[in-house]
């Protein structure tokens, strides 16, 4: 009976809410997907956060600080959505720092110059938006609602990045080189953000059936490439792919073969920054333990005193 209601709700394109009956697999998949997304937001604070104190103008400093703060906020919205399914944030954090849950592989690359801040906004956040806009229609209500809010807020993230790059391209030759170098380093990892090719993405079919995924990895990747090419031209940078060209027949850009072995390496923990990212998150969690305990102890004391 409950299963029929669940299937009918999905079929009518309505939302599943936390207290509804749902298949175990749906619950587990949802928790895993939302938690990975939340972890990505929190770990994603690190590559850009490293540049806040070094930002070369006060306006850029304010923008970057607000942006990194947003990422903490997005992580919180998402953990909050995961908790409606019975997950516990503390437990999810432990899974992250013990390497039992993953986060987006893109954050395992280092940010070498300030141009990386701009390119992360343009390409990485741009790719994230491509992935996330369809999630605003996810079949799980709390996730869909969190995504609406996140997408609204992320629109500034992408624009600030592109604006920074436009400004730098009008600057000194050294600045223009910095931008091109950052584009060269981030382009391919951005394409990998959409995940393995459809043929090697075992969970896609079930996720599509449950409407927690609305487009395949390859569809979204193609959309991102099609969007980014004219943006790169307007900026005056070259995307590092000799095979990138318009295909009039398909009405899409063709692009070169992605080095999937690199993605596998980075996902499995062997990326340039994996260890450091997790170590930082672990340290914050451990160094904050006494503070969290103190607040809990204080609250308990206050409850004991009769009002």
């Amino acid at each position: 009976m409950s299963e029929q209601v669940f299937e009918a709700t999905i079929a009518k394109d309505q939302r599943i809410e936390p207290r509804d009956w749902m298949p175990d697999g749906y619950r587990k998949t949802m928790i895993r997907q939302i938690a990975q997304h939340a972890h990505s937001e929190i770990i994603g604070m690190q590559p850009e956060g490293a540049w806040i104190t070094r930002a070369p103008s006060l306006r850029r400093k304010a923008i970057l600080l607000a942006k990194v703060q947003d990422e903490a906020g997005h992580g919180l919205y998402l953990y909050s959505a995961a908790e409606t399914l019975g997950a516990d944030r503390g437990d999810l954090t432990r899974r992250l720092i013990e390497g039992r849950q993953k986060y987006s592989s893109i954050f395992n690359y280092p940010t070498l110059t300030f141009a990386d801040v701009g390119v992360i906004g343009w390409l990485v956040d741009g790719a994230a938006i491509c992935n996330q806009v369809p999630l605003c229609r996810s079949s799980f209500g709390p996730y869909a609602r969190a995504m609406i809010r996140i997408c609204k807020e992320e629109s500034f993230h992408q624009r600030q990045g592109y604006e920074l790059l436009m400004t730098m391209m009008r600057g000194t030759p050294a600045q223009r080189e910095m931008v091109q170098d950052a584009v060269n380093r981030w382009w391919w990892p951005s394409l990998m953000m959409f995940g393995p090719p459809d043929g090697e993405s075992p969970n896609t079919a079930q996720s599509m059936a449950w409407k927690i995924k609305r487009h395949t990895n390859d569809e979204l990747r193609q959309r991102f490439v099609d969007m980014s090419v004219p943006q790169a031209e307007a900026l005056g940078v070259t995307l590092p792919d000799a095979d990138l060209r318009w295909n009039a027949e398909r009405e899409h850009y063709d692009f070169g073969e992605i080095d999937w072995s690199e993605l596998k390496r980075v996902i499995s923990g062997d990326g340039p920054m994996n260890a450091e990212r997790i170590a930082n998150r672990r340290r914050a969690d451990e160094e904050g333990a006494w503070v969290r305990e103190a607040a809990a102890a204080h609250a308990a004391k206050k409850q004991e005193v009769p009002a």
Partner: protein
Amino acid sequence: MSFDDAYQALTDHDDDARWAYGTGFADPLAGVPTELPEGVDAADLAAYCLMLGDDALILSHRLQQWVTRAPELEDEMAIANIALDLLGQARLLLTRAGEAEGAGRGEDDLAYLREAAEFRHVRLVERQDEHFGHLIARLLVFSVWRLALLDRLSASRDPVLAAIGAKGVKEVAYHREYAAGWAVRLGDGTPLSHERMQAGLDAVWPLIGELFEPHEVEQRLPGVAIDRASLRSEFDAVIAQVLEAATLDRPTSAPSSERGHGPELAEILAEMQGLARATPGGVW
């Protein structure tokens, strides 16, 4: 009905600018006349704006160093908010300093191209936090002092300083509440947190003398600048109230009124100014 949907209320604005940082928000100085008030020495006004602006700039920097290190994600949000507020105050004050100086320097010239000796902040904002107890102790002491200061500044004869004061009061009232709340939780939490909170307070206490020691720049700007000695009684009353609720002891060390900067400023400036200075002619 979508009328009752908070997200609808968020999205029913057509102005996308609402979601772009720094636009669609009220300009805190809109309509405020920027001419210097009569009888005011421009160099003194510039120096005073730098004093207040550098306090905010350097403390914001110290708070920025906490990003990704806060004890809980909700506190990431709070600390970043406070750092952003102070950065905003610094930008307005440095801009005003540049206007008063009249040499064409803007906020970035003043933030990025001055040498350590030209910075005018109090020593309190400079020191490195060893742990969250230090962060809270310094933020408490600073916010209590600064709120009293900005409150009086909102009646300054300089209309720009008055507007900055009025805006800042709302922000720093919140910073003070945040710091006081945590001082009480840590002070009256576990034995370890009590010890660390007290240690934080003991560490910053010697630096508070300077906060109330009359300053010659202020004395040359009557009606414009605030006499910092006048802030003492409010400061003492608020701190006493917090310490009592937090079961903390008022430190016994003698506050020093010594001015000047320590070696930590060189590290701060190397970090803050390094990239800007390494890219001559760069635009950001």
